[in-house]
């Protein structure tokens, strides 16, 4: 999954667009979603970001749909609570036998949050699917983020892929040896997996130290960067889009759906 995401980030149709512009549009959309008082603007962001991912970056629709389903269960739990604890307005639904009721205000708040979460998620996926991590590191360096933090992040990033591969191999061999049949066995096997993984990780970290020392590592990782200028039409389009969303957000602030 991670490899596939990063593959798309490296090969999509927006690859050659300036990473700064893509990051700026994505982050500004997120901020607009969070600060929007009504659910219309976040839904507009969700729609336009999805359109950008599908039409401009040419990410397969089926893959994108699958991605969107991943975080849904995490959102659902908290939304349900908000739905029940927020009172006020007409009662829409009562749970028989329990002191629980859904009211109009609760439903509106839950809808607004759902719209914001959805808009934010689409914006995050827009960044994830169009901008490779390496270019984000490069941007962070230009923004004067402390070097030690960037180096640590880059090394962590590199190791994530190696570790996922290894965790998958250990997991598959454990499954083949019937390691996850009962609950007790599962906990034991998972602990074994995590322990083996940690030790292997540590050893590969130690050999990385050796390899880096052999190449005259002096506490700084120098990575050459290429800069792509921001094209004026792209910047204008981005700003136009953001101001349109802002306009919608302000003008539809009072709109409630229920």
């Amino acid at each position, binding site marked *: 999954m991670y490899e596939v995401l990063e593959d798309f980030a490296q090969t999509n149709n927006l690859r050659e667009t300036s990473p700064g512009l893509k990051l700026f549009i994505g982050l500004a959309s*997120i901020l607009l979603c969070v600060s929007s008082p009504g659910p219309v603007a976040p839904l507009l962001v969700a729609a336009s970001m999805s359109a950008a991912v599908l039409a401009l970056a040419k990410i397969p629709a089926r893959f994108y749909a699958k991605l969107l389903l991943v*975080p849904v269960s995490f*959102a659902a739990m908290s939304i349900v609570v908000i739905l029940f604890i927020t009172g006020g307005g007409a009662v829409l639904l009562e749970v028989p036998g329990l002191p629980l009721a859904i009211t109009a205000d609760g439903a509106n708040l839950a809808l607004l949050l759902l719209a914001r979460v959805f808009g934010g998620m689409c914006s995050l996926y827009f960044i994830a699917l169009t901008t490779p991590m390496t270019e984000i590191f490069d941007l962070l360096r230009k923004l004067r983020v402390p070097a030690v933090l960037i180096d*640590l992040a880059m*090394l*962590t990033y590199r190791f994530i892929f190696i570790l996922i591969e290894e965790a998958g191999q250990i997991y598959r061999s454990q499954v083949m040896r019937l390691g996850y049949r009962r609950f007790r066995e599962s906990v034991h096997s*998972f*602990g074994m997996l995590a322990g083996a993984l940690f030790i292997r990780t540590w050893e590969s970290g130690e050999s990385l130290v050796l390899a880096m020392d052999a190449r005259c590592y002096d*506490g700084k990782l120098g990575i050459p960067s290429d800069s792509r200028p921001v094209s004026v039409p792209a910047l204008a389009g981005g700003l136009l889009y953001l101001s349109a969303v802002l306009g919608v957000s302000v003008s539809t602030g009072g709109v409630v759906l229920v």
Partner: protein
Amino acid sequence: MHIMEGFLPSPWWEIWILVSLPFIVIGLYQLNKLVREKREALPLLAVAGAFVFVLSSLKLPSFNGSCSHPTGTGLGGILFGPCIAAVLGLIVLVFQAVFLAHGGITTLGANVFSMGIAGPAVAYLIYKAGTRAGANTYATVFIAAALADLVTYVVTSIQLALAFPGTTGFFGAFSAFAAVFAVTQVPLAIIEGAIIMLVFKYIVQLKPEILTRLNLLSESTVNKLREAAA
């Protein structure tokens, strides 16, 4: 427990970013000092960060079949102390947000506080207290990791209840959020404690140098533990 992007309204997401910021700054300062003294610390911290990322993206065996995952923060807190664990937590959470849309950018402050600061700090304090009192090492690790997981979810519930007090007020909202999360998180905390304990056991058996080098266990304790296992 990640709070989703867009879930926390203004001003709460700004407040939590401000709350987390000093810990990150202290962590960066400690990190800079550590790297200047021992260059090999950087790659080793990086693999630890990657380990936390992978551990928290693996699915745990759980009772109800829900999609639950360990936080792995307890281990980071025990190994490196709470401030550096906060920096590792920040990196892991940014990756999870940008890779997986799991968590978010505006909710980063809140998530860093619950998973990167509160959890590891609790694990660290319990581990230190336990070793000083001479308690059983494995039991200490179990309690530290399980409580770190629990504290993470309690803090998340507090954050959500502060932002959405509803009509019942803060305490009513807090108990509602806590009750919903408790269904998955209490068994999960116990499982995470058991798993981190097993991880610790494997490290002691196979590569105890890691623990002695980080000044977590003295050589005599390691020898005692290995003899007890043999």
